[in-house]
C-alpha cells in the first residue's frame, strides 16, 4: 500500500503519543496503535513489515505457544520482536509495528512473531500477510465474541490469505480443514494409553464429517473433538502429520519428524500442554530451526506463571490454574486436569467474568457447556465457589452430581480461603480467569498460610 504524507503524519503522531505514554510510566502497548488505526484505517497495511512475519492463532493455547516459540527464538539467538507484553488484537499489532520501527516506519528487526486473536483477523490479515501461520485448534469459545466454531472457521478461511503456509493440528478435524488450498504441515499426538473412542465431554464441535455430514468412526477421541477419525460415508479422515508425538513421559515427548525421532522436554505433561509444545516445535522446525537446537532451548522454558504455578507447603501444594471464564472448553480441560491430579484435592473457583461481574449480569450459559462433572470425582473433597454468580455455580455443581456437603459458596471472594478445610486435601487448586490473577495470587498466599498452620498444628 502507498505511503502518503498523511500516513507519515499519523506515524509521527502515534510515535509521539507512545513516547509521552512511556514517559508517564504507561506501557503503551495498545493506545498508539488504536490511535493510528483511528486516524488511518489501513495503517497496518501501509506500515513496512519485517522480512518474516509469523502469526499464531487458535481458540486455546495461542498465548502459551507464542511464548514457547518466542522463548526458543530468544535462547537460540534470533533477533525478533513480538506482542508478548501487549494486546493480540489489531491495535496491539499496530502498536508493535510502531514501537519496532524507525521514524519512517522501517522495521528495526527482520523477524516478528504475532499472537493473533482469531476474531481480529479481519482487521489484521488483509493488511499484513504472514509468511507462516499456526492455528492451535478451533473450539467454541465466548458466545458473545465468537458465536460458534463454524463462524470462526468461516472467518479465518475468509481472511487468511491464499498461499500462506499453515501449521495445523491434525487431531482437530475443524482446524485441519483450514485453508484447504494452502501449503500445510500438521502436528499430532499418536494414540496413547487411555485414549478411547467414547466422548466424555459435553461440547462436541465436530459431531459429524466436516465435509459431507456423514457419521464419523473414531480411532480415538481424546477430549471434545480432539482425536482421529474417518468418515464412514465419504472416506475423509484426519490427516497424517509430519510432526507426531509418539511417546510421552512426565518430562518429555518423543516426536517423529519425517521418520527421524527426537526428544523434546515438556514443562507439563497434561495433553493441552503437550499439544502446545508440539505446535511450537512444528512451527519452529518449519521456520528452519534444527530439532536438536529447539530441544536444547525448550529445556529451560516453563509455562508462564500467570497460567499455572505450583507452590509446595510441607508436601502439599497450592496450585494456581488458569481457567478462562466464558470458555467452556478451557474450563473443562482445567477440571479434568484436577480430577486426574494425584491425591485428594480442594478447588477454589473464581469463575466470574471480571468485567461482567462489575457492570452487568454475566451470561452463565457457558457453565452448562463446561464439564463440571469431572469435579464430582471422589478425589475432589471440597469445592469453594466465590463471586457474584456463586449460586449459579453451586446449582451447576449440584446438577453435575457433586454432593452438596462438598460445596461451599459465597458472594465475596475474600472469604474463599477461610472456609477451606486444610486438613483434607493434598492439593488446593485455585482456578481463575485471565483478569483475576491478582485475586488468585492473594488467595494462594492465604491458602499457603493455612496449609502451613495446619502442618504446624499436626507437628505439635
Amino acid at each position: 500500500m502507498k505511503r502518503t504524507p498523511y500516513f507519515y503524519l499519523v506515524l509521527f503522531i502515534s510515535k509521539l503519543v507512545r513516547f509521552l505514554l512511556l514517559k508517564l510510566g504507561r506501557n503503551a502497548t495498545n493506545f498508539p496503535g488504536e490511535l493510528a488505526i483511528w486516524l488511518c484505517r489501513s495503517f497496518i497495511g501501509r506500515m513496512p513489515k519485517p522480512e518474516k512475519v509469523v502469526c499464531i492463532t487458535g481458540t486455546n493455547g495461542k498465548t502459551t505457544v507464542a511464548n514457547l516459540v518466542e522463548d526458543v527464538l530468544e535462547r537460540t539467538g534470533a533477533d525478533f520482536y513480538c506482542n508478548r507484553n501487549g494486546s493480540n488484537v489489531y491495535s496491539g499489532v499496530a502498536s508493535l509495528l510502531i514501537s519496532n520501527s524507525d521514524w519512517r516506519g522501517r522495521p528495526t528487526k527482520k523477524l516478528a512473531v504475532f499472537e493473533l486473536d482469531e476474531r481480529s483477523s479481519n482487521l489484521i490479515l488483509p493488511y499484513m500477510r504472514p509468511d507462516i501461520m499456526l492455528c492451535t485448534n478451533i473450539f467454541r469459545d465466548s458466545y458473545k465474541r465468537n458465536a460458534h466454531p463454524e463462524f470462526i472457521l468461516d472467518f479465518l478461511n475468509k481472511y487468511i490469505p491464499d498461499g500462506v503456509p499453515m501449521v495445523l493440528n491434525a487431531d482437530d478435524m475443524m482446524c485441519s480443514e483450514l485453508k484447504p488450498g494452502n501449503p500445510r504441515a500438521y502436528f499430532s499426538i499418536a494414540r496413547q494409553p487411555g485414549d478411547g473412542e467414547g466422548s466424555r465431554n459435553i461440547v462436541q464441535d465436530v459431531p459429524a464429517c466436516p465435509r459431507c455430514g456423514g457419521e464419523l468412526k473414531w480411532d480415538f477421541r481424546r477430549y471434545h473433538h480432539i482425536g482421529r477419525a474417518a468418515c464412514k460415508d465419504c472416506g475423509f479422515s484426519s490427516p497424517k502429520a509430519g510432526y507426531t508425538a509418539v511417546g510421552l513421559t512426565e518430562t518429555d515427548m518423543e516426536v517423529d519428524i519425517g521418520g527421524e525421532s527426537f526428544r523434546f522436554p515438556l514443562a507439563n505433561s497434561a495433553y493441552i500442554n503437550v499439544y502446545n509444545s508440539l505446535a511450537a516445535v512444528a512451527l519452529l522446525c518449519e521456520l528452519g530451526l534444527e530439532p536438536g537446537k529447539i530441544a536444547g532451548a525448550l529445556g529451560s522454558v516453563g509455562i508462564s506463571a500467570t497460567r499455572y504455578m505450583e507452590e509446595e507447603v510441607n508436601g502439599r501444594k497450592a496450585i494456581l490454574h488458569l481457567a478462562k471464564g466464558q470458555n467452556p472448553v478451557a474450563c473443562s480441560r482445567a477440571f479434568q486436569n484436577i480430577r486426574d491430579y494425584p491425591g485428594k484435592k480442594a478447588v477454589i473457583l473464581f469463575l466470574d467474568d471480571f468485567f461482567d461481574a462489575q457492570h452487568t449480569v454475566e451470561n452463565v450459559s457457558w457453565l452448562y457447556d463446561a464439564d463440571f462433572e469431572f469435579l464430582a470425582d471422589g478425589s475432589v473433597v471440597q469445592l469453594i465457589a466465590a463471586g457474584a454468580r456463586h449460586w449459579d455455580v453451586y446449582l451447576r455443581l449440584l446438577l453435575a452430581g457433586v454432593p452438596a456437603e462438598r460445596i461451599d459458596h459465597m458472594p465475596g471472594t475474600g472469604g474463599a480461603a477461610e472456609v477451606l478445610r486444610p486438613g483434607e486435601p493434598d492439593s488446593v487448586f485455585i482456578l481463575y480467569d485471565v483478569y483475576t490473577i491478582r485475586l488468585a495470587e492473594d488467595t494462594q498466599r492465604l491458602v499457603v498460610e493455612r496449609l502451613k498452620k495446619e502442618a504446624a498444628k499436626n507437628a505439635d
Partner: protein
Amino acid sequence: MRIEVLFPEYCSLFGDLFNVKYLQACLPGAERVDVSLREEPELSGGGLVYMGPMSERTQEKVIKKLMPYKKRIGELIDSGTAFLLTGNALEVLGSHIIREDGSRLEGLGLLPVYAKQDIMHRHNSVFLGEWNGAEVTGFKSQFTMAWPTEGAKGLFTVKKGVGLNKKCPYEGLRVNNLFATYLQGPVLPLNPCFARGLLEAMGAHGAELAFGGAAQEAYKARVADFYSKVR
C-alpha cells in the same frame, strides 16, 4: 413421559441441552429420545419435543430435514403437544429467514414470524421479562432479529432488554403449548417458574423441580443483579 430431542449433536451451541437434562432430573422416569440429523424424527406426540440453537448452515439442513414433517408438526402443535425451542430454533418453524445477501430461506411456516440475518453485527444482551406474573431472566446472543407477523402471540413481556427485535414489546412466541424463545442456553434451570410452567404443559402436574431450592436462590440473585446493574 417422552422427551424427543431433535438433532442434539448440532442443536446445542450454548449449554442448551441442560434444558433436557434438567427436565430429566425433574422427571426421573422420563424417556429421552435423541434424534440425530441422520435419522428421522419420531414426533409421536405427548411429552415434549425440544430443539436448541444451531449454526446458520445447520439451520438449512434442519429445515430441509423437517420440511416433510411440516404437517405432522402442525398437528402436534394444534393438539397441544409441548414444544420448547430455544435460540434460533424458532426460525426453523417461522415463515422465512432473510440471509445477509438478501436471499430468502423458507422455513416451515408454522410460526407467524420471520428473521433477518446480520452476521457481522452479533447481538448480545441480557434479558428480563415477565411470564405468568413471574420474572424470567436470560441471555441473548444471535445474528438475527425477528419480526412477528399477524396472529403472533409473545411468550415473555419485555421488562429489560430486547424482545424479538429492538422495538418488539415481547420476546419469543407462544402457540398452545409451544414455547419458543431466543433466550439461549439453560433457560429452564435458570428460571424455576418457567420450568414449572413447561412441566405442567407437558402434563407432569405437580412435578418437583430438581434442586429447586438452589435453583430458586440462583434465580433470585440473578433477578436482583438485573435490577441493580442493568438499566
